[in-house]
């Protein structure tokens, strides 16, 4: 025990007595919003230590979490990765369903706006196995009233024609197939000529004389002369025009998304169908003009001319 010099004893006693009375005061004094003074002093005195302690514990916890607890982190990461993959798959499925719902809604809307036209919706269930042909298989057949040479369309435009019919399924030859095609005409000039496939994603409009004025971006619609497609169904857009002798070389971008068909419409008759597209409305002949049922020219125009 440390001995206190006698001359300092009274000073030590004074300090002790004063501190004791200060504490006594602090216990009694109550500040307006901060509680008793002793509590304020205690909190103020402890604050630096508490803060240092919190910082120290935080550092220790950080070291433990970031360096020593990696085993659990790895397991957690693995679980999260699996969950992430699962969620991605779910999102993909939901997006696919949403897109399908949009397509079906478009088909339904199309059917509702053309109630007088006999048609049947169909789902694409298969496509041609090789590049040699461009065909699709749909889930509608003879039992549904589908027959050969019926037009197949989407709300965007012409798709092709039915070439084979089975009990519950049918095969459709796309416009882009080398043997596919349709009677067509330019919307602005009403110049007619068959549009046929080339085996590539684009099509070609043939037999348009060199002197005809054809511009890039011009719309092309069905002419109805092939007795397969009604008039004024969008076929595509002129994407390139080259001079030729005696006919121009015109490349056409299909209006329908032929490379990603999932649902289509089979027209059960050649009743005229109104398309509310700019192409149909801008032509001098008008899209709303009904097609005559007595079209008897170019009977095989749907196939390669």
């Amino acid at each position, binding site marked *: 025990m440390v001995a206190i010099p006698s001359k300092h004893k009274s000073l030590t*006693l004074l300090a002790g007595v*004063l501190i004791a*009375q*200060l504490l*006594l*005061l602090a216990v*009694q*004094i109550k500040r307006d919003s901060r509680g008793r*003074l002793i509590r304020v002093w205690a909190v103020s005195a402890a604050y630096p230590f508490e803060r240092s302690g919190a910082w120290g514990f935080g550092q220790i916890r950080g070291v433990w979490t970031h360096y020593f607890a990696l085993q659990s982190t790895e397991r957690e990461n693995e679980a999260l990765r699996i969950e992430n993959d699962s969620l991605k798959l779910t999102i993909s499925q939901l997006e696919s369903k949403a897109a399908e719902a949009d397509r079906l809604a478009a088909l339904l809307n199309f059917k509702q706006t053309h109630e007088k036209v006999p048609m049947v919706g169909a789902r694409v269930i298969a496509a041609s196995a090789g590049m040699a042909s461009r065909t699709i298989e749909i889930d509608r057949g003879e039992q549904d009233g589908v027959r050969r040479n019926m037009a197949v369309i989407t709300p965007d435009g012409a798709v092709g024609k039915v070439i084979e019919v089975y009990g519950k399924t049918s095969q459709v030859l796309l416009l882009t197939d080398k043997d596919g095609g349709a009677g067509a005409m330019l919307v602005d000039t009403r110049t007619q000529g068959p549009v046929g496939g080339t085996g590539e994603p684009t099509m070609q409009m043939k037999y348009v004389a060199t002197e005809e004025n054809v511009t890039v971006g011009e719309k092309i619609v069905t002419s109805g002369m092939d007795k397969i497609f009604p008039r004024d169904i969008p076929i595509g857009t002129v994407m390139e025009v080259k001079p030729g002798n005696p006919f121009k070389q015109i490349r056409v971008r299909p209006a329908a998304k032929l490379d990603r068909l999932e649902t289509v419409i089979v027209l059960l008759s050649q009743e005229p169908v109104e398309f509310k597209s700019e192409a149909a409305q801008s032509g001098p002949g008008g899209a709303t003009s009904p097609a005559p049922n007595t079209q008897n020219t170019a009977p095989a125009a749907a196939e390669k001319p």
Partner: protein
Amino acid sequence: MNEAYELRTGETHIEVHKFYPGAVVLVAALALVFQATAPVYFPRLSILDLPLLATIYFGLSRRNPSTGLLLGMVIGLAQDALSGPTVPLGFYGIGKTVIGYLASSIGARLDTEHPAARFALIFSFFVVHQAVLMLTRRVLLAQPEAWFNVHLAIAAGVNALLGTMLFLVLDRLRRNS
């Protein structure tokens, strides 16, 4: 130790006084009772601080800092207790502890028997006591109050004058050496 004795500090000879048994307790108790009751009937008497005068007197006479500060603490705490709930315990206790210590320390070094010296010392201790009270009030109680004013100066003078006379009476309670 019933006898008075001399305290030698260098070349000076300071006498340490003893009192009759119970004299310190009796005087302190009377001072406290007077301080608590007299202003009720005579409000002007609130200017006096008899417990402070008792603390100063016994501090100067006993000349032992430890005894002086403990006596000051006891008298101060008793005054706090008698001052009602608005005065926290320790308010006067701190002030009188400091005065008890200072009075004992100074009494051990200086001759405080002369009336003029006593007047000056009482006046000074009153001011220091008020300063400690004001400091306590401002810092701990958060009650802004003037450090010193004319009223306090008058109170210091009145207490010094009364104390000087009172100390002559209290001297009679000392035991003869």
